[in-house]
């Protein structure tokens, strides 16, 4: 039988493949209670630091991945069968959205009481552990302090034509910033003016980047002078990469994103997950992240022991209604991407 040969070999290959897999994926065989799976937006080195410290303290290994912009998508997609225990990082607007979609389990760690109500969900579905301001910055070798923009509205000034670079709408900080700026206009019932501002600003933007390093490289290599980003990235670039950057304290304030943490509903390792949340938001860990990774704490005790520069850099906080924003962000960003981004430029 000629055909049975094909069948046999196919079956053989399948078997070999499955056997190979068992070796390839230790996660399949491991017991369920002795690990915690963290989906995050934080960078690998910071996650590694937190994970290592947690493992050292509890002996429970942490499996983490940095899903960046795809985090919410992934948690949603796994709703029927969650693979993660903890969602760590990402702006509060995303947490609010996912809370509404019933993807979290409420949990209040011991340190939650001392967190400002602004930074947490009233029912305990999520809590902010890091404050992430988004600030404008410029290359000080290209612009003087006088030439640099003073406020967000300056970004629409034609004199900055082709002097601005930005992340694209896949970056959660850029999304939060654009929507927060728009919200400022919306609050004054001037949404149309807001869109006009964004369009004018878009006309000045030389390039949108899909990655932060290309964005910072563009400023570092003087392809453009002005940009905006999360503060810790700016500080990293100044301190680690010796880039000549200056931060702008925008006159109307800068949006401050709260990076949250939450227990995923239906988590396979709920106890380890709770222990991880307890640990990751603790004043000690917050302080460690402040010292090593320039992340601003939400916990008063940690703020007290934060690094020197945090005291030095001052910025006004933009009054953003994050809860209202959570409802509007997706719609606004879809419209921004369709109608605003590059709308004035030739589509070549």
């Amino acid at each position, binding site marked *: 039988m000629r055909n049975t040969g094909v*069948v046999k*070999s196919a079956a053989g*290959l399948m078997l070999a493949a499955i056997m190979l*897999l068992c070796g390839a994926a*230790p996660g*399949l065989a491991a017991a369920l209670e002795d690990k915690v799976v963290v989906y995050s937006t934080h960078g690998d080195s910071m996650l590694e630091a937190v994970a290592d410290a947690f493992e050292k303290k509890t002996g429970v290994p942490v499996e983490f991945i940095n899903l960046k912009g795809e985090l919410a998508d992934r948690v949603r997609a796994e709703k029927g069968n969650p693979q993660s225990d903890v969602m760590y990082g990402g702006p509060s607007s995303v947490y609010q959205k996912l809370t509404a979609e019933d993807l979290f389990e409420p949990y209040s760690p011991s340190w939650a009481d001392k967190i400002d109500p602004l930074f947490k969900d009233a029912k305990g579905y999520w809590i902010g552990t890091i404050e992430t301001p988004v600030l404008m910055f410029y290359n000080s070798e290209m612009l003087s302090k006088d030439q640099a923009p003073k406020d967000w509205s300056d970004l629409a000034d034609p004199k900055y034509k082709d002097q601005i670079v930005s992340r694209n709408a896949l970056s959660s900080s850029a999304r939060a910033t654009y929507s927060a700026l728009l919200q400022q206009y919306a609050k004054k019932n001037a949404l149309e003016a807001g869109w006009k501002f964004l369009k004018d600003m878009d006309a000045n933007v030389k390039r949108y980047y899909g990655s932060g390093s290309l964005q910072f490289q563009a400023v570092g*290599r003087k392809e453009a002078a002005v940009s905006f980003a999360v503060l810790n990235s700016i500080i990293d670039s100044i301190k680690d990469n010796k880039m000549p950057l200056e931060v702008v304290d925008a006159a109307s304030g800068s949006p401050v994103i709260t990076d949250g943490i939450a227990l995923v509903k239906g988590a396979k390792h709920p106890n380890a997950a709770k222990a991880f949340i307890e640990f990751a938001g603790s004043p000690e860990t917050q302080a460690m992240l402040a010292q090593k990774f320039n992340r601003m704490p939400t916990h008063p005790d940690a703020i007290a022991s934060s690094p020197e520069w945090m005291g030095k850099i001052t910025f006004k906080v933009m009054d953003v209604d994050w809860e209202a924003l959570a409802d509007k962000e997706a719609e606004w960003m879809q419209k921004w991407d369709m109608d605003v981004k*590059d709308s004035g*430029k030739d589509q*070549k």
Partner: protein
Amino acid sequence: MRAGDGFREAGRRIRRSWILLPLLWALVGYVLHPALMTLAVSLRGPDGGVSLAGYAAFFTSVSELTALRNSVLLGVLTVLVCGVIGTWLAFFMHAVTFPGKRVLDKLFLLPMMMPGIIIVYAFVQLYGESGLATRTLQLALSLDKPPLDLVGLPGILTVHAFTQYAFFYIAVSLAIRRIDGSVIESARCLGASRGRIFFSVILPFLTPALVTASAITFMTGAGSFTAPSIIGGSYRVLTTRILLSKANNYLGMAAVETAVLTALSMVFFLGLRWYEGRRTFAPSVRAAAPQRLRIANPWLKGGAIAATAGLTVLILLPFFTILLYSFVDSASLMVSVFPETFTTDNFTAILTRRRAFAPFVNSVLMSLLAGFLCLAVALPAAYVIEKTTLRLRWLIDLLVTLPWALPASAVAINLISAAAEPSVFSFSLILAGSSLLLPLGYCIKGLPLMAKTAHVSFQNLNGALLEASRSLGATGARTFRRITLPVLYPGLLAGFLLVFVRSVGEYATSAFLYTPSNKPISIAMVNAVFEYKIGVAMAYGTLLIVLTSVLALVIGRLRPRGMEGAPAGR
């Protein structure tokens, strides 16, 4: 007729046999079902019923139509650019002999094996506004403005040209070798000029190869995501739109965009199938030994050599950049273009840290697994398509090629959804662990390539060989082991290798499907970029180049001597 009868007979037996069931199960479960799910979502109206509202919105939005037009344009231009480069190189390599030709031939295949994402970063570092090549040119020519800026359509096209010309190169190289020398000679005897010979004789011989390569290139070009998302600038295409719609939770619109993109690719795919079916052109029964085409005119020859040398430099430059920057401190790359000091820290960072090295092991294992899974599906599928007359052939043919038309994100997201709820397709329990999902995703993305090579292999497998074996007393199993496999082996090996290298650096599917226990190299690479460690990312790239080259070399050695020259029959 004669050789076909046996297969037809076998096909008749298969009809009642179970071989089709697992095959159809796998294809329907992991290709058709996800595709239909996307279609269903795209047709869901606001009230939950079936509605064309999503499509109405799509086809009335200027922005969406622009994206559609741009995707088509990108696909077409990619075909043109890659067609010219690949065909040119194939002709050149055929016509000119020089030392080191075999090495160069291998080098020309290298770009296809590199993950798109690292290529894009290498290109930005090379040809971006402050790239290595840009600044070098600017300094050399003392220009006020940077002479190059890799952005928008030209930028995407440059990257596509680099990563995709190999389809044309391979297809045309093979086709040239099959040109019947006596046909050219007889055309010459009939008084045809060189140009006439090219258009009336050589081109018809190449047309099948060109059509196939064009269809594949179009589908990959129009469905490309990495290049448009990183250097696309204001050039809006459907693939980037899909991701943004998804990020904004406009899942209906994302599904519509996916369906439109898939339909676009399907048009080309079906066109290709129609062409292949209609084609009655076949080389004469006994082709004379192929004649080497020669360039006689010394000026022409000099020009050709110069042009190819230039192309070769352009092809090798990105690899050089990756290699160079992998020895440069990441921080200095953020501000300066020309590196001054070199370090091996980037490699140390990868090779000495468990978490940094694990992606290597993961990617290799998962790509191997994907390769085997692909074989397990493509082998019986190609057999059924090529050697039987089953009614369901067209369906299987369609299903194994469909993943080409599906955007990576669609494959990935639907795999997750399918695995989340236990179904007949998900082994319910086993798949739930989901470490299998990524290799499965690789497998699905690699399926068309594997099916295509397996298909060609089966075409080479003359039915008489199998019958000869049987008549000499060999059982079906023995025939399969001793004759079928060895004859198919070179093609299957090539297909396996292709799937492996395309998987080992795959980014688009990985981004959606990886889990903590199977983080692949491409993700590690991109994460390094996200942490401003471009040097580390490039070091990952260098290691990947080394890995793929060594693997290609080792497997090349395993191949039995002279297999490709053997008269596998007609």
